[in-house]
């Protein structure tokens, strides 16, 4: 991707040093060095492709998104002073649009999953610790609203006229993703002893190697960033 090289320059011109840039700080004090905008973009790009390829909803990236959006706003501010025909203006504007596309596409993809698997996702998140939630606070609000809009619609047209539901019926209606669907995987680091297939066969993944495998068997590797989906 040659486009992103231009961006690297544009982004590396300044490091983010807003307080938000220390978002990692809470988790681990040793990682308290400021994160570059370039790094933020890389994280988002990976999150984007992973989200596109994974059958289930992955962990939200609110911190990274907020950093990126402030950065975009900051760049837009600076570009106001540039002549529109300036070459730098064109390059930067182009990169901004690409970033905006990636973020929109990423969030759209998540929204589609949220709408498709609403109840399943809400139920699962209810069992998770605050730090492990898959939904961002905004998405969680949206999911709740969406679920109640659907309920209201179903109820007004049909369910209020139907005999009471039996036990188990509500669960029957929950739509869940197929976690055993196959995905393309690339190992970021060496991973040994990955169980592939039902017969407990194990395989070692070499860094950079690529595989086709049921998602569920490698979902933890994605979570730990030891591998990514492609």
């Amino acid at each position, binding site marked *: 991707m040659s486009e992103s090289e231009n961006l690297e320059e544009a982004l590396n011109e300044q490091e983010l040093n807003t307080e938000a840039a220390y978002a990692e700080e809470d988790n681990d004090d040793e990682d308290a060095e400021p994160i570059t905008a370039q790094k933020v973009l890389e994280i988002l790009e990976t999150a984007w492709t992973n989200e*596109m390829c994974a059958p289930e909803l992955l962990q939200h990236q609110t911190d990274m998104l907020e950093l990126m959006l402030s950065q975009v706003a900051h760049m837009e501010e600076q570009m106001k002073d540039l002549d529109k025909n300036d070459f730098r203006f064109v390059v930067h504007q182009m990169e901004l649009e690409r970033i905006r596309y990636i973020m929109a596409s990423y969030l759209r993809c998540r929204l589609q999953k949220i709408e498709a698997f609403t109840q399943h996702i809400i139920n699962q998140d209810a069992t998770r610790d605050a730090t492990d939630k898959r939904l961002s606070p905004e998405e969680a609000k949206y999911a709740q609203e969406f679920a109640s809009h659907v309920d209201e619609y179903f109820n007004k047209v049909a369910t209020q006229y139907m005999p009471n539901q039996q036990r188990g019926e509500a669960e029957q209606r929950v739509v869940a993703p197929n976690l055993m669907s196959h995905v*393309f995987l690339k190992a970021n680091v060496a991973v040994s002893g990955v169980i592939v297939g039902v017969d407990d066969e194990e395989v070692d993944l070499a860094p950079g190697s690529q595989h086709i495998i049921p998602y569920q068997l490698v979902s933890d590797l994605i979570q730990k960033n030891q591998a990514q989906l492609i």
Partner: protein
Amino acid sequence: MATDSRELQDLALKHKSSCFYLSTMNYFPNYYSIEDIFVTQEKVECKVNTRLQRMGFLDAGAETEDLEPGRTINLPLWYIKELKVNNAYFTIALPDIYKNVHKAVCEAETTHIELGRLHPFFYEFGCYLTPYDRNHVIGRIIFETLRQRVRHLLDISKNDADSKPDHRLDNIEAKLHDAGVRTNTLYINWLQMSGNNIRISELVEEHQKKRKRADRSDDEGGGGAGGSGDMDMPTGKKPSW
């Protein structure tokens, strides 16, 4: 396991990122799945084993109040699958279509079979029937049939997008075929760096066509000029969202 087929990967990502609505590619029936409801609407031939009181209405050819033992009737799959496999009321007769392709499967000659003509939901229907199949052949037959045909499916999706071999494919195959054609088109567009134009929204396009048709049939219908009147978009401003 490991694959270095770059081409396949590029296609996979290209395909995914171009699906605006979450792809239905991954067939995985849920409660609301219309496909699955269609499959379970299919009838299964059953023999009645015991007198069933007041169920005579299920037997189109009988006038009796009760359903008599020994009769053969067709019952929808949605009912059958709620019963225990070895229930005392009915014995399920497996359709011949699966036996009929058995020979072709053994000879690895399944690509020419007009599967869609045999049964529109050959595979899914077969899956539902496997519990009733004491000889355990249907499972193997549908697995082998698809395994043999999938390669051929890939070939025909690449070659001609227009001539869809209608009744040769069953429902799932037809969807795979569509997906193949779509992916192939995207791939070619990508190679030629075309097809990246912003398109009119599909629903808007369909709506406009419909309105034009309506305008032609009765002229007093619309307000005439503008055409954006229905959208209530404030002119001169960007649409608010």
